[in-house]
């Protein structure tokens, strides 16, 4: 291996600074959430305590944090499952280059790039005019799907662009039906990527703000609750909440990454499951 050029060290330092820039602020509020009871929103630390975390678990003066957490998690799971199923189906559909697929593709891209406030406003107006109540599980759910589905679809494109069609041909040649080919050949091969789609589905929904704003109704999701707190809470309790929900996000991300890794390992160890479909 030849020696590293000087540019390597300059770029490595730049990269390190970038990572610091990404994580520095969140680490800071992580530290500040351990402020003493008398501490404020900035340094210096006024003692060290779990006071603000304890505050979160007591009867809330500031809002319904745990209810919001429950709603966000439920909604995240709903969006995750829907995103995986709908994206896979759409991914399979787009391989067929059916008539009008171009139009549908551009609709999905529009869904991704449209300013979120338009979705919020439009969905809110429709529910309003139809005399329906906006609710996080109906209008909020649909509004979030307009954000997660395009990501799921783009991942499916990336997956199928790399998919070796000869596996399917082999299955067909051996007499597998279209459904058997999908169930026993295509789905197992793309399974690790589906974990990725699920990760996008859950986390993007869990943290979604702009599209949920006018569509969640009277029961807030967690990001809405936190944003509400920014205007009227001036104690480190908001940092404690930020630290907890970020830790939760890291946990979820870690679980998904672990899942991908385990599937990869199992696959490497077990080799093929040929014949199990018979």
């Amino acid at each position: 291996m030849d020696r590293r050029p000087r540019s390597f060290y300059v770029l490595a330092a730049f990269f390190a600074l970038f990572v610091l820039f990404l994580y520095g602020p969140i680490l800071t509020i992580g530290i500040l959430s351990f402020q003493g009871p008398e501490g404020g929103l900035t340094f210096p630390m006024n003692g060290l305590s779990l006071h603000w975390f304890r505050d979160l678990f007591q009867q809330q003066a500031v809002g319904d944090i745990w209810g919001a957490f429950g709603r966000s998690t439920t909604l995240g799971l709903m969006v995750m499952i829907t995103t995986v199923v709908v994206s896979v189906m759409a991914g399979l559909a787009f391989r067929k280059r059916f008539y009008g697929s171009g139009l549908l593709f551009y609709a999905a891209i529009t869904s991704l790039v449209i300013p979120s406030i338009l979705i919020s406003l439009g969905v809110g107006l429709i529910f309003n005019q139809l005399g329906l109540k906006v609710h996080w599980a109906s209008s909020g759910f649909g509004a979030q799907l307009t954000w997660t589905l395009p990501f799921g679809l783009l991942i499916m494109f990336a997956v199928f662009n790399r998919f070796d069609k000869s596996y399917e041909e082999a299955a067909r040649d051996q007499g597998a039906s279209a459904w058997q080919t999908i169930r026993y050949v295509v789905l197992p091969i793309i399974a690790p990527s589906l974990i990725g789609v699920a990760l996008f589905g859950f986390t993007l929904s869990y943290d979604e703000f702009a599209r949920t704003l006018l569509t969640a109704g009277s029961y807030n999701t967690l990001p809405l609750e936190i944003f509400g707190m920014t205007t009227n809470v001036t104690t480190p309790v908001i940092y404690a909440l930020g630290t907890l929900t970020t830790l939760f996000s890291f946990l979820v991300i870690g679980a998904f990454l672990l899942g991908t890794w385990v599937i990869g390992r199992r696959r490497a160890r077990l080799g093929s499951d040929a014949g199990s479909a018979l």
Partner: protein
Amino acid sequence: MGADLLRNRHVLGWLQAAPLTLVLLGFLVAPIVMIVIVSFWGATEFSIYPAFLWDNYDFLFSSPVTYKVFWATFKYAFITWALTLAIGFTVAYFLAFHVRSLTIQIALFLLCTIPFWTSNIIRMISWIPFLGRNGIANQTLISWGVIDEPLEWLLYSDFSVILAFVHLYTLFMVVPIFNTMMRIDKSLLEAARDNGASGLQTLVHVIVPLTTPGIMIGTIFVVTLVMGDFITVRFMSGSQRANVGRLISNDIALLQYPSAAATAVVLLCTVLIVIAILLRFVNIRKEL
């Protein structure tokens, strides 16, 4: 007959795409149509009524505020784009061409993408202890003797707005640029070197042209996210700056839905024109 129909790829394709189509019809197309309709409606102080009026558009285009706010929106988008591109390209370049082990490459790439899956609101809030009057930045600069008094423009200014945008959205540049760089055939770089190209020449004449699709995809993400934003500007400027998104959300808060809808229509057209131009340079489906 039924089985034949199911074997037709157009029919089967639409069947498999039906769930996606339904969601997009119900929560993308219908809302856009609704906004266009409502943009012609009238409003009283507390309600809206169906009509066909050009008043909302007349007011929008005759108000100097509109032009100022659209200009600010473009300004934020352009500055953020330039910064995220410079940072994102450098980071992706380092990862793709200077890190030699695939495992480390993936690990560092994940390190860069993980914040994308966490809350934007929290990531914005987390700048406050840094930039405030008594924040870390001011305290550090004062202790170093660089400044005597705290800088006021660190928080609640254009500076903090753009800082937050760069912080939130650089990932959207890193990921697609890294993706296209990883697909560059390494033998092309060797060929350039063998023919006597310097590192810089290889970068400018080989890597940048081959990375253009990734840059375009990143650009689409960053530009649309910044142009459609209403929350970062509000939060990071302490409501002292405005962009188009805030204009819309202020109207919504005042229940002036028709006026909000008219602004939204103009914003949507602006964004779609920008995207249409960018899409001429890249075929997204091929690049993934």
